[in-house]
């Protein structure tokens, strides 16, 4: 346990890690030493409590140099469930929430619900902390803080706006449990912020016109549809334009889709429910495959998944139809799984597959598992009511089952047949006769009651048998179960009304027996019926209508799935499973009729000027998502200290985010329109792309460099103080590196500021990420004092911004240096005509396209400056004669196309589009160019 290990350390180390150390600690000292004093009064308070544990924990939270100790201490402190420490806990959480280690911040997020359950009064303060942590940019924190959000303030959806896009983008790298929580929360969020993507489509089942008659429920559904259509009309009237998916809505769908491949069933289910609730109908299908895969998992997982599939298969049958066979039942499945599979099979039944399904059902009926057989019979009944073509076949099959040896089977068949007969009784008097005979043998009360009801209801069809049945029943009345007794009374009353000559005495007898029954329901019923049917002087006006009351035409029952309409609960939730609202369940809101302002999610681009370039690099490294790197780079284990910079960096940027502007709504509308067009094309594009992937794209590469129009930026490799007089600067010369075309040329300038000569300048001990290569520059034998020399080396960065680390050696010393390329240097310009550009761009849509809106810097509004700034930021060449400002290049190693478009609009508004197969490169390039254009 880390908690106890923290204690061990505390005991062992308290003497060595004494108080004087606080100031020395490089990581925390500077920031927290003043805070420590502030807690002196707390210390007194705690001492009076004689609880040194709390104090010790508090001390650690504030001051231990090791992030793990700080985190464990907070965990211990927050797990003490004593109200007296609430203020201290609050302070500790606030402190930890601005800790530089993301792990400590994660622990702070974990502590929030603990404090909240201890003292709900702290809610407002805790929300502030949550707000702050939500702005955190690390994957480690994201899951935990959303969990805290869900527990403390799930209604504060406004806190999510600014963090929405970030959460979507981080999602794939968050740990799996956090993913589940975030996806569920985002589902709810999306329901409040976006428009229903299916609003313009008719909500008919995919199966076609025949479906409408399947479900007994179709009337309701029709109403539903009408309502929705009305809504749609209203919406359409109001807007007078077709549905346009918000790009943020698309972002969510796009970023969650890969998680369907997760090994964690809960994640897969979370994505599935997100798609079910949010995706356009045409796209929901992707989840079926993943859900079917889960059916191979543990039986508990199967149970939950099947429940959800059952609900989904009512609304979206077509989605699971191809997987029909995966729901076939094995004799070894547990009964509860069998029953659920049966439910799904029944939901999936239609005219085309009903014969196969019925054949399957036939095998199931022979099963040894009687509960399952009963469920199968029910299922057959439902198929029969839903699909009129097979009604007679089913009925015949069920009648055959009446001669089954097992009583349960017979009883269940009777109940189902009763329901089926109600639909067309006149055709089936022989079946009713057959059933009347069964009363001698069948003992299951429900079945007996059903038969009696049938005979009573259709006594005209069996005029001879009915009185005889009543006679037998009267004989055994006292031994019957209550429901059977009630039906006997019922039968007697109906017969008395239709055939009083034969049955008068019998009825009297039955009513007399019932009068003295132990059950008051039965006594009441007998009294009521006697008054109603037997005419006396006192009998009221009602008795005239007795016949109408009893022998009214009754509507046939609707056999519907118990899973119908369960989808008003969020799928995958406990409430959905239980079909009852569980405590703490957050309702899934209905789609809004008009989308709320999408600009609330806009986040102002962080001002990079505030943090030095070093910090920026570091942050990128930390943030680098694991999955998205396509180039086999391995992120090394981050240590606490290396992250400290990024933490402060993110804080400063989060501060600036809050001042996000809301003036971009117009633009974003336009953007979303163009997005929509892309969406339509996307499918086709994808297909095209697949075909085109194999044939290399033809293009003319001008090997002679298209000279960069801007001055080269130089970076420092070795400062003259650390280098003991030797200073080295490098720049990316943007010239082709002749020994190897796949390498980026790095031009180095060595200056010897020392008073003595430097000899044998060369490179040693190159440490590279896999795949990267370095071509060293030839050794510089002598660099006299005060002189300057240049050399060119080549580095194949493998299209990644991983640093190349090596030692720069002189005859006396070795210096560790590293070169990390800005992403713009990982490409070389190519010449494309505008047509070629458009063509290539068309093939790099969808995931490969990143679009950002920006407001151009005031000084950067004319074409020339824009071109200059873009070409400075990235080694690209401008497409000549382009209508917009278009730039093209290829990555140096893999030769993937990089296409950049800057479309300017009035008043400095502009849109930046980057199309690149390598998404990591694309994302980073967008950031860099954005920065170049907005500063």
């Amino acid at each position, binding site marked *: 346990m880390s908690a106890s290990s923290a204690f061990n350390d505390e005991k062992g180390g308290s003497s060595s890690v004494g108080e004087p150390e606080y100031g020395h600690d490089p990581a925390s000292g500077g920031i927290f030493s003043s805070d420590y004093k502030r807690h002196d009064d707390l210390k007194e308070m705690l001492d009076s409590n004689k609880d040194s544990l709390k104090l010790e924990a508090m001390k650690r939270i504030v001051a231990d140099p090791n992030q793990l100790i700080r985190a464990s201490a907070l965990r211990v402190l927050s797990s003490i469930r004593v109200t007296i420490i609430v203020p201290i806990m609050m302070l500790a959480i606030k402190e930890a929430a601005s800790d530089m280690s993301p792990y400590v911040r994660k622990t702070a997020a974990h502590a929030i619900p603990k404090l909240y359950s201890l003292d709900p009064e702290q809610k407002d303060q805790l929300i502030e902390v949550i707000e702050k942590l939500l702005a955190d940019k690390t994957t480690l924190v994201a899951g935990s803080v959303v969990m805290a959000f869900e527990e403390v303030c799930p209604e504060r959806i406004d806190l999510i706006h600014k963090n929405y896009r970030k959460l979507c983008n981080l999602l794939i790298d968050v740990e799996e449990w956090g993913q589940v929580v975030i996806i569920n929360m985002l589902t709810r969020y999306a329901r409040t912020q976006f428009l229903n993507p299916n609003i313009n489509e008719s909500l008919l089942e995919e199966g076609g016109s025949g479906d409408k008659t399947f479900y007994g429920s179709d009337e309701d559904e029709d109403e539903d549809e009408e309502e929705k259509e009305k809504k749609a009309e209203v919406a359409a009237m109001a807007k007078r334009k077709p549905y346009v998916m918000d790009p943020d809505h698309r972002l969510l769908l796009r970023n969650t889709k890969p998680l369907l491949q997760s090994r964690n069933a809960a994640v897969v289910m979370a994505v599935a429910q997100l798609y079910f609730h949010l995706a356009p109908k045409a796209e929901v299908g992707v989840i079926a495959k993943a859900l079917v895969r889960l059916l191979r998992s543990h039986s508990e997982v199967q149970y939950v998944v099947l429940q959800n599939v059952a609900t989904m298969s009512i609304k979206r049958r077509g989605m699971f139809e191809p997987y029909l066979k995966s729901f076939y039942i094995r004799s070894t499945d547990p009964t509860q799984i069998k029953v659920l599979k049966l439910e799904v099979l029944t939901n999936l039944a239609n005219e085309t597959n009903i014969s196969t399904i019925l054949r399957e059902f036939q095998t199931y009926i022979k099963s040894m598992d009687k509960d399952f057989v009963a469920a199968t019979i029910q299922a057959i009944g439902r198929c029969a009511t839903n699909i009129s073509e097979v009604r007679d076949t089913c009925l015949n099959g069920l009648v055959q089952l009446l001669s089954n040896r097992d009583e349960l089977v017979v009883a269940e068949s009777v109940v189902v047949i009763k329901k089926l007969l109600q639909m067309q009784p006149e055709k089936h008097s022989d079946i009713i006769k057959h059933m009347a005979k069964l009363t001698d043998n069948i003992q299951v009360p429900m079945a007996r009651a059903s038969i009696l009801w049938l005979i009573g209801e259709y006594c005209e069809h069996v005029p001879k048998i009915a009185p005889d049945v009543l006679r037998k029943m009267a004989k055994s009345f006292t031994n019957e179960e209550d429901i059977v007794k009630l039906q006997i009374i019922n039968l007697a009353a109906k017969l008395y009304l239709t055939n009083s000559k034969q049955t008068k005495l019998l009825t009297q007898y039955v009513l007399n027996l019932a009068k003295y029954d132990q059950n008051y329901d039965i006594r009441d019923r007998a009294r009521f019926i006697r008054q109603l049917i037997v005419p006396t002087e006192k009998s009221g006006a009602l008795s005239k209508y007795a016949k109408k009351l009893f022998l009214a035409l009754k509507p046939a029952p609707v056999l519907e799935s118990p899973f119908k309409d369960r989808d008003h609960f969020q799928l995958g939730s406990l*409430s959905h499973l239980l079909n009852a609202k569980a405590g703490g369940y957050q309702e899934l809101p209905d789609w809004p009729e008009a989308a709320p302002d999408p600009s609330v999610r806009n986040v102002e681009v962080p001002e990079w000027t505030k943090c030095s370039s070093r910090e920026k690099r570091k942050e990128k490294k930390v943030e680098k998502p694991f999955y998205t790197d396509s180039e086999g780079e391995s992120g090394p284990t981050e240590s606490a200290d290396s992250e400290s910079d990024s933490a402060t960096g993110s804080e400063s940027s989060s501060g600036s985010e809050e001042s996000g502007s809301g003036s971009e709504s117009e633009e974003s509308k336009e953007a979303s329109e163009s997005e929509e067009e892309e969406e339509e094309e996307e499918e086709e594009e994808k297909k095209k792309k697949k075909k085109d992937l194999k044939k290399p794209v033809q293009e003319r590469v001008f090997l002679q460099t298209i000279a960069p129009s801007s001055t080269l930026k130089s970076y420092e490799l070795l400062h003259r103080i650390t280098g003991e007089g030797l200073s080295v600067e490098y720049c990316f010369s943007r010239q082709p590196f002749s020994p190897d075309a796949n390498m980026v040329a790095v031009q180095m300038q060595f200056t010897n500021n020392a008073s003595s000569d430097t000899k044998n300048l060369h490179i040693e001990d190159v440490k590279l990420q896999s795949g990267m290569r370095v071509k060293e520059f030839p050794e510089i034998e002598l660099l006299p004092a005060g002189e300057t020399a240049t050399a060119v080396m080549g580095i194949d960065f493998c299209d990644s911004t991983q640093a190349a680390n090596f030692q720069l050696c002189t005859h006396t010393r070795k210096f560790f240096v590293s070169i990390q390329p800005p992403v713009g240097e990982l490409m070389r310009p190519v010449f494309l005509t505008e047509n070629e550009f458009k063509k290539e761009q068309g093939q790099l849509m969808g995931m490969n396209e990143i679009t950002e809106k920006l407001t151009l810097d005031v000084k950067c509004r004319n074409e020339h400056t824009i071109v200059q700034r873009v070409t400075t930021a990235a080694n690209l060449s401008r497409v000549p004669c382009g209508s917009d400002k278009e730039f093209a290049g290829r990555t140096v190693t893999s030769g993937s196309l990089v296409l950049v478009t800057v479309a300017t609009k009035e008043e400095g508004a502009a849109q930046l589009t980057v199309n690149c197969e390598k998404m990591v490169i694309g994302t980073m390039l967008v950031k860099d160019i954005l920065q170049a254009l907005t500063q």
Partner: protein
Amino acid sequence: MIHSLFLINHLGDIFLEKHWKSVISRSVCDYFFEAREKAVDPENVPPVLQTPHHYLISIYRGKLFFLSVIQTEVPPLFVIEFLHRVADTFQDYFGECSESVITDNLVIVYELLEEMLDNGFPLATESNVLKEMIRPPNILRSVVNTLTGGSNVGETLPQGQLSNIPWRRAGVKYANNEAYFDVTEEIDAIVDKSGTTVSAEIQGVIEACVKLSGMPDLTMSFMNPRLLDDVSFHPCVRFRRWESERVLSFIPPDGNFTLMTYHISSQNLVAIPVYVKQSINFFEAGSCGRLDITIGPKQTMGKTVEDLKVTIHMPKAVLNANLTATQGNYTYDCTTKMLVWDIGKLNPQKLPNLRGSLSMQTGVPNPEENPSLNIDLKIQQLAISGLKVSRLDMYGEKYKPFKGVKYVTKAGKFQVRT
């Protein structure tokens, strides 16, 4: 989220409880026992139960119930998946997940549970991170610990949970660097009476045992990746790379792990390796039955079928079986009504046959149902789907690892209806 956990053995004794928030009385389990009673079979206990104040979510693993108590809305799969992860962790630590092993290692179990959940929310579930904090037991350490009073809590601070590849710790060193991959495919099939395939699917899994020093970056490519259209990966696999190039690129966890699982659905044509000719009849007269089963090879791709076994769950009325097998042995358990015929290797020249009579209970009507046959089999060196690993490359480290891939095809839920 998860409030408490109870471990219950098959007798219905609660032998371990752990509370992450406040203590909840054991009596909450009574609702579960009631449902357990009603379900007859432990597999039929509903995984989710509602009680007046709590919700109970349970899993059944290795004859044990893991019962968690929930107070508010939480996705049930979240809890179920987590409970299975707990059971997996026990299995990983102690080699098995049984009552005796858990009670023997109570200290470690509690330590693990403490770390895996914080206030009911999963904290560290990655085996690599846990092992860094709490060392798995071994004989030497437990002896030393008893003598010195030491504990098995790791001495160093666990850095694993800080890394962005939490599944691998830094500084792994091996004298022999090796990476083994087992491609195991299971055929799930339903074959009907006449021998036609009703449904057939393949469940494939690639298990890996990777013992490589340093931070190796592996790339595995397949001859025919098109086969894999429905896959799920260990978090270490770079998904985008798979999407674009259909290769598995990953930094592997240290030791044993499941790299990926895949599913080839019934829409594809699945080869069925054996055929079964069977006839099981029960006669009214003389209260006996006849059984005749022959198994032969069908689509075995030229490989031998091994470990062939047929299991039949007979109807209750069957008292005994008097059979002769031309190959292998059969046993009939009168209490569980299970007939097991262990055949072994399938010889295509001389097909194994089992025939004879079944004695039935007198005075009881004939069973209507026909028992279905469950087939077990194994084929070495074959992945029935045709999947083949074409190469495995390692980047990031200098040494040359020893690499190996093994293929096995097994019968999963392979059922022949009669």
